[in-house]
């Protein structure tokens, strides 16, 4: 049968799943606080702009975006199959490309800062 290359896809999924488990709830909380009218100080334009200006921060943010979008894409791919959508290759293609495009976009926006 031969060993599969699935680890290419599964590795970032496992990494992203772990990262989002630790980080995403509190990040959502930050924008939720902003939504409720009590934005954290970091979300003030000047502070956030300065924070996002650091090279290391840009790299980390792109990393977080990639792992988050990739793990979501992978899980959604599996869920589609679970719910009876048989065109797995097509679904996978669309979702992984979307994740990569989101990552690329975040990198482009950060480079403008």
């Amino acid at each position, binding site marked *: 049968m031969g060993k599969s290359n699935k680890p290419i896809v599964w590795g970032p999924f496992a990494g992203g799943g772990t990262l989002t488990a630790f980080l995403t709830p509190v990040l959502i909380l930050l924008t939720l606080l902003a939504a409720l009218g009590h934005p954290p100080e*970091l979300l003030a334009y000047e502070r956030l702009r300065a924070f996002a200006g650091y090279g290391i921060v840009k790299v980390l943010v792109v990393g977080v975006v990639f792992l988050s*979008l990739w793990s979501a894409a992978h899980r959604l791919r599996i869920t589609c199959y679970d719910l*009876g959508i048989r065109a797995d290759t097509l679904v996978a293609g669309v979702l992984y490309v979307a994740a990569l495009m989101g990552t690329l976009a975040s990198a482009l926006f950060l480079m403008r800062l």
Partner: protein
Amino acid sequence: MAEEVRRRPYVREETWRWIFRHPRYLRYMAREFSCLFIGAWTLLLVWGLKQLSEGPAAWSAFLASLKSPASIAFHLVALGFAAYHSITWFRLTPKALPLQLGEAFVPDGVISGAHYAAWAALSFAVLYLAGAF
């Protein structure tokens, strides 16, 4: 002498309705669905980066748009699903990464508990450093 029996196995096809067979499958689906909200929030993050890169006016507009009732509702639901993802992920971590010390395995509860504690500490640290309180 035994008669020959004609074999004609009957195949029962599986449909997507398997998710309703037992509560555990619905819980699994809920866990899987968390990816929609985590993915959506991350796309919101990317959108926010775009607005941030376009200057203070765009950023203010972004912050203002967060305040809509739809946005608040989305955030509450997303937070719930994201937390469910975390809880299930850390509950399953000891299964994937068992730790044998000597003869005994470290109890699952200890490994999960350490993850929950780290999750809480990290969240607190992020809130503090971001000036949320």
